[in-house]
């Protein structure tokens, strides 16, 4: 039964016109993670690679393609955890980083902390030599459209994102 990798691209409302890209995105991520495992790589390498691939895919709400906050900006969160020693690393409200999951792994591997947030996470990224990217490169037309649509007074962002009861 081993090795195995399982990925998700997010639960909620997935418009018909985006379903195809979402499906191909998760299949590519699973293949990439599985190739690492078959090559003798660790489960941590596999999950980080699979998630980083989806962060780079604008079809998903992570990395490039993240939803926007009320000010129209991108703030991202990520976590990694490994089951042998229960070590974990996370970043929250981090900006201008293409792959927050890789930064979360560095928090686990290079610090004694569990989570770094906001400016602290960005300072740590600079110390680790992770290049910052312009926020614009993380924003898509689709995420900007949804942001504008949910600025209206009677908007319901949670229902827009999660959809109605399954």
């Amino acid at each position, binding site marked *: 039964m081993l090795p*195995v990798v399982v990925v998700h691209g997010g639960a909620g409302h997935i418009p018909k016109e985006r379903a195809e890209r979402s499906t191909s995105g998760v299949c590519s991520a699973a293949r990439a993670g599985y190739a690492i495992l078959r090559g003798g790589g660790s489960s941590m390498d596999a999950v980080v690679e699979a998630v980083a691939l989806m962060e780079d895919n604008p079809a998903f709400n*992570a990395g490039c393609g993240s939803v926007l906050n009320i000010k129209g900006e991108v703030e991202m969160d990520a976590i990694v955890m490994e*089951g042998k020693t229960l070590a974990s690393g996370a970043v929250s409200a981090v900006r201008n980083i293409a792959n927050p999951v890789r930064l979360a792994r560095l928090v686990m591997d290079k610090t004694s902390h569990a989570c770094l947030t906001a400016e602290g996470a960005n300072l740590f990224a600079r110390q680790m030599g992770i290049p910052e990217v312009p926020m614009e490169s993380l924003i898509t037309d689709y995420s900007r459209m949804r942001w504008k649509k949910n600025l209206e007074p009677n908007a319901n962002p949670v229902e827009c994102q*999660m959809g109605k009861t399954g």
Partner: protein
Amino acid sequence: TVGAVAVDAEGNIACATSTGGMLNKMEGRVGDTPCIGSGGYADNEVGAVSTTGHGEAIMKVTLARLILFHMEQGKSAEEASDLGLAYMKSRVNSLGGVVTVDPRGCWAARFSSRQMSWAAAQRDTLHHGLRSGEHFTQSI
């Protein structure tokens, strides 16, 4: 939100989750994803979970660790995932989805929302789905 869980050939387990958060959230709002036990959890002795959904609700029930507690009581990955999602629905009336794996490589992709894109790779077979009840397979 995107996430992954994996068990490698040595039996080591890991999880990873990443997100842009909730649509039009307040500046500085942090959801479940970076919170250990909510956005994800991994333990070689029990399994791993990566979660997605309404972060404030997932944190209230610490969804990832809750599912692993059910697995510690002997529930399968699928039963435990459904129990965790059902508890979140009943207690805080919220929807979500998870991918879950146990140390033997049994896995589940479960969700209470209408949709969740997921995929799994095991024994050179690729599994995937998006709508409730979908489970397609193809050779890798």
